[in-house]
């Protein structure tokens, strides 16, 4: 199988990169790392939605979609060129020489990232088809879509294992296979890898945006050195793609609340990422709901009340395409969900009022949290906790940090209630899935932590004057 199959992944990435650039170039405060990293989840998400419409109108095998993508790329390039605001210095500001610590941490992040990629490749060599859920749910769906041709809608029947799961990843893989003309097993791990490593770039990129240069590199190191990140990423499940989209949504919402002048631009991308999260996994639809409730509540009641309508319009604009795709899929194609459907509603309700399940669920979830990260993550995480506890901080948690914290808490509460109402044996369900659900929130949690602690920059600057760090 030729390495040229990787070229089929280029158009979605370019669409995401150019779309993000078009929206964010006017902020005049964007870095290349963030743009490139956002380009992956946003681009693959947009491409997947468009490919779903294409398949819905014709079929996945209908030729011509690549020309449609090229036309979109050309249109985006033209629109960016018309703005005439391209400035490389803005994009590469995070590479500017600051102090030795900045370079040491940046170099460490490169080493950790390189080792992470090598470990990911090793895992992929061991399991080229991914693990259980990959070939039982995600890659088998990609095969069905790529092979079924005009009868592709016939594969969404109750006999299919988890046939109601959304299609961002299966359509992305099927699209590449059809364009390449071969079901190359290079594609699924490449897609998994792009999403896995994009989260590190988004995490560091957002912290650079709020001038936490050293903490940005540190956060990327902590994320990429967590064995679970590489392990779950290489499994080729849709969990790490969902992680990247949840982080993209949270990060852009965080920046929207941090950057009042460019709020609507960040909100469009943030809402789009939240919508695409719902197109990645069913848990992403819970996230979309939590995101919309909290973001709208914050924008209507607490923040920039003068521009509420414009802000809500931006959210609506971002979420509209993924929302249409999700609704169309769920109403017209997807069979009923195995956890929540009309046949099981009485079981769900009985479980909800069985209060002894609440304690069992909490204990089961806590056991998974205690083992979080994998074998070697204990060391950096302990150091992180020590550093947090030791810091003589003057914390000023303002709206952006509070919003991010609320989203994380409500999403966890949502997961808790899914376990409460599950018709499956609860502890088994928790043991089989909660580690992956924690991964959905992990980089967003790191973003929250590294954005509220005292930035090292202020304290290591030669002219330390004791001023407060910028509040978030």
């Amino acid at each position, binding site marked *: 199988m030729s390495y040229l199959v990787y070229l089929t992944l280029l158009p979605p990435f370019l669409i995401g990169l150019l779309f993000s650039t078009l929206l964010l170039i006017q902020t005049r405060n964007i870095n290349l790392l963030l743009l490139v990293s956002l380009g992956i989840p946003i681009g693959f998400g947009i491409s997947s939605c468009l490919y779903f419409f294409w398949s819905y109108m014709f079929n996945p095998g209908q030729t011509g979609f690549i020309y449609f993508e090229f036309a979109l790329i050309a249109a985006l390039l033209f629109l960016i060129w018309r703005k005439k605001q391209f400035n490389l210095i803005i994009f590469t500001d995070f590479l500017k020489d600051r102090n030795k610590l900045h370079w040491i*941490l940046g170099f460490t992040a490169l080493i950790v990232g390189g080792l992470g990629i*090598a470990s990911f490749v090793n895992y992929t060599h061991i399991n*080229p088809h991914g693990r259980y859920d990959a*070939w039982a749910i995600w890659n088998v769906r990609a095969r069905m879509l790529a092979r079924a041709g005009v*009868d592709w809608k016939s*594969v969404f029947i109750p006999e299919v*294992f988890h046939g109601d799961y959304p299609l961002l990843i299966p359509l992305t893989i099927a699209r590449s296979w059809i364009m390449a003309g071969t079901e190359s097993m290079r594609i699924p791990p490449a897609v998994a890898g792009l999403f896995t490593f994009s989260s590190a770039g988004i995490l560091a990129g957002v912290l650079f945006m709020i001038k936490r240069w050293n903490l940005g590199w540190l956060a990327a190191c902590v994320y990429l050195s967590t064995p679970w990140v590489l392990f779950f990423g290489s499994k080729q499940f849709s969990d790490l793609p969902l992680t990247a989209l949840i982080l993209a949504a949270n990060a852009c919402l965080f920046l929207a609340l941090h950057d009042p002048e460019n709020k609507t631009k960040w909100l469009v991308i943030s809402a789009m990422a939240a919508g695409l999260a719902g197109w990645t996994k069913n848990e992403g639809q819970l996230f979309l709901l939590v995101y919309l409730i909290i973001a709208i509540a914050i924008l209507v009641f607490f923040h920039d009340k003068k521009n509420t309508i414009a802000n809500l319009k931006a959210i609506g604009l971002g979420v509209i395409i993924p929302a249409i795709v999700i609704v169309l899929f769920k109403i017209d194609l997807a069979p009923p969900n195995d956890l929540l459907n009309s046949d099981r509603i009485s079981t769900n309700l009985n479980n909800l009022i069985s209060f002894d399940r609440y304690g069992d669920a909490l204990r089961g979830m806590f056991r998974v949290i205690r083992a979080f990260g994998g074998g070697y993550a204990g060391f950096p995480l302990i*150091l992180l906790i020590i550093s947090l506890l030791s810091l003589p901080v*003057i914390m*000023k948690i303002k709206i952006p940090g509070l919003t991010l914290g609320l989203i994380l808490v409500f999403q966890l509460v949502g997961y808790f209630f899914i376990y409460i109402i599950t018709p499956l044996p609860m502890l088994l369900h928790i043991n089989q899935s909660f580690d992956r659900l924690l991964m959905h929130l992990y980089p967003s949690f790191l973003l929250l932590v590294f954005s509220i602690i005292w930035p090292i920059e202020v304290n290591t600057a030669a002219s330390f004057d004791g001023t407060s760090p910028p509040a978030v």
Partner: protein
Amino acid sequence: MFKMKVWFPRKFFQILLVVLALCLAAGTGYSALKTFQTTSRDAASMVGPEMVTAWDNRQERVRLILPADGVIGYLADWDIPNYEYGARDQEVEFLLMQYSVAPVILDRGVDHEYVLGNFNDNGDPGKIQFIQDYFGIRLIKTYSNELFLFQGKPE
């Protein structure tokens, strides 16, 4: 919104932060290196194709004579009464078979025109005849000593 103040000597604070940052960076480097070493060892110990690839290769010839799409039946040891089987193995093989024969969809039972049979060869020469008699289906093709295609009983 929320304010907390704790006082330390400023110089001590500065040094502490840098030391902690460097310790954290070193810790992450150590963690990344250990993960790389473990995965490299595991990858190097691989002999031959892993389970899914080997399974998928074995089923290639089955795909060739199945219908292009649609639903077919699926029988395995877990459907034979009073027969010992590993529940987990049976489930994994069902899903692996589904992975291999996609976009054809497997439905457990015999209520379809074709039924794919995937049975453990336990040396019992009467096993396949018993299955045919018990389920009222007819053997069309034998792929191997474990894999068979039957004429089913469409509803």
